[in-house]
């Protein structure tokens, strides 16, 4: 990815984005749906949009998913 597309992607905002508070409130539910392979993005598009755009929440999501998958594995 070059600088133009990185800047362009960073500045794009998704109106469905629910913000950090709501995404973190529902993170455990979202992660369980992802871990079960059950279409979390379709069920929770606002959370999916947020996790794509917010670095810290995205990192927390990946961490929680890894912890859950560790248990399952």
């Amino acid at each position, binding site marked *: 990815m*070059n*600088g133009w597309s990185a800047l362009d992607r960073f*500045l794009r*905002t*998704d109106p469905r984005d629910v913000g*950090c508070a709501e995404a973190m409130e529902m*993170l455990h539910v979202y992660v369980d749906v992802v871990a079960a392979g059950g279409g979390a993005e379709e069920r929770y598009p606002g959370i999916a949009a947020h996790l*794509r755009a917010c670095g810290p929440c995205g990192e927390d999501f990946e*961490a929680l998913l890894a*912890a859950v998958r560790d248990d399952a594995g």
Partner: protein
Amino acid sequence: MIPVNRVVDEIPARLDPESAEWLRMLAVTGPQQDTALARLHEMLLRIAQRETRRRGPRMLIAGPELEDLAYQAAADALMAITAKLSQFRGESRFTTWAYRFVILEVSAKLGRHFWRRPDVRLEAEEWDRLPGRFGFEPARESEWRDLLAAVRRAVDTELTARQREVFVAIVVNDVPLDALAVRLDSNRNALYKMMFDARRKLRAALAANGYLDDDDSGHS
């Protein structure tokens, strides 16, 4: 600790057996509860240690300090979980709900720790680092120089003073969102919303001046 009957009475019918067992063990005062708490603490600590080791180097934390942070995160998460046990409604597995606490504790503690670094100054504006933040190649500066000058102009003219402060800290100076929230006595959500509005304004200004296209749907 939560009264036994209150938790047990509220165990949702749809709960998976393992989650129901966790609730039952944590609710009953005595050796069973002690065993469950010790096991849960061990699980939380393992996650905290993994996360602090993964994120620590970026925050320039290592060794015993990192280990202390992991222990504190696990202990604080366990306390929060036991205090909020009655709020667990079975929307997820119990362990997923519980793990969320320790991961958020690690994030918050690392954010607070950021300001112990001697090289961090919120007031500095490191605009010369902006090209590198977005991967613009120095060899092709003639192609992006005007764009980044337009970004800087838009930051100065389109954003409120508070939005500018947050944008410069996070994007220009690379201060983590959680660390900035600590310094500004704010929270992740409020700063994200401020950045969300700032990004929208900047994109509109750059599109109006022909630097970016007008489509801001952001859907992918």
